[in-house]
């Protein structure tokens, strides 16, 4: 699995950091999403997929 975030789309909702805190966090200055683990362990795949599904700007791309 490979995860990327499109900062032009991200609206800093922080949904991803709430749903998958091991995979995403928010930048302190503007709240945009940052990927902590671009290739997470399988144990985190469901959380990462969920974060992508719930992102309100579809800014998260999960490639499997």
């Amino acid at each position, binding site marked *: 699995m490979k995860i990327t975030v499109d900062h*032009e*789309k991200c*609206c*800093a*909702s*922080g*949904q991803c*950091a*709430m749903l998958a805190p091991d995979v995403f966090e*928010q*930048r*302190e*200055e503007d*709240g945009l999403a940052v990927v902590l683990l671009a290739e997470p362990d399988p144990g985190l795949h469901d959380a990462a*997929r969920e974060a992508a*599904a*719930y*992102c*309100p*700007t*579809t800014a998260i791309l999960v490639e499997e």
Partner: protein
Amino acid sequence: MTGDRVAVVGACAAGLAAAEALRRHGWRGEVSLIGAEPHLPYDRPPLSKQLLSGAWGPERTRLRGPEQLAELGLDLRLGTTAVSLDARAGRLTLSDGTELECSGVIAATGLVARVLPGSAGVTGVRSLRGLDDALTLREELRTPRRRVVVIGNGVLGSEIAAVIRELGHEVALVGPARTPMEHSLGPCVGALLAQVHTAKGVVLYGGRRVEHLGTAADVVRSVHLDDGTELPADLVLTATGSTPATDWLAGTDGIDLTDGLGCDAYCAAAPNLYAAGDVARWHHPVYGRDLRVEHRMNATEQGIAAARNLLATLLPRPGPTAAEFAPVPYFWTDQYDVRVQAYGLLSPAGHLHTEVFRGDRLGAATLHGADGLATGVVAANLPPRTVRALRAVVARPVPWGKAVDDFKSALDQFETCGPHHRGGGT
């Protein structure tokens, strides 16, 4: 209902989220995704932001790429609408005459923009609901220094005014609220937005209504307000709200179409008929009342919830289990460099407002509540950790006094001004 098919009516955020969730939760039958517009599923918030400003082309607004859509194996029917549903028989009739036998239907048809009375047939009056509207508008704004009157000072009108102003046009923002978005965010954040809009050169006409349009040969020339003000106009943009798109359900037995499609706490309107997004009014089990939420986050969350709950009835065990839909509503708006985020239920009549100094920027937070309970919070220009802490304050309705203490401690790292109280939280 019958057949090995789930039909999702409406192919924007809520509908696509539902279609994806059907697959993710194990539905191997047909998924028909029916979209009124000819476009691949696209996202609406960027229409009044990145698309209108010219930063994005239309393909950037797509919710998923063609490959991602192909993976879902959808029966995608674009440029097609549903015209009627016999829910008991599971028969959905489409505008091209097709009849689909369905074992489940998810209604995600969204909204229809309200038309300004007296504007039918008048050239130069536009609204922004779909991608084509936004592209047409963008074309018209290529002519420099147009005099634009935006009617409606809720979220859409306020966002449009900001973008058009930044494109260099003369902009007047007219609406019933005294300050931009005051009816949803309250007067304090409204005043902050008014200050920013004014500083950028938008002329605000808050607390006014449009009396009539002035036209010459059916082309709009001016907008006349109820206080006698006459605003010259080359272009008028109406953002005066929307109504749920439920016409296609008018003949369906056993459903409630008062303000959207009425649903229970599981987003079910009738057996195997579910609803999601702007069109859905459902019973929120935590707030204990019906809500219909016209915000982007809700479209996704409810699309997923409706799909899962439908599958809980369609799939054999161990399929997904049904769960009440009990989100903390969320929305955001960006205007110029101001980012506003709101959580929970806002109740502008009763609130506590604090202004926050962040170096050279002014931020703000407002706690909203009614009947002794705090239910919502608004954050303007605050850092993410603070926003998350504020959200936690109102993740469930809490007694006003406790919420005020938590609200203040969420902000205690900042030098603040206020708080300003008003009305009935207590």
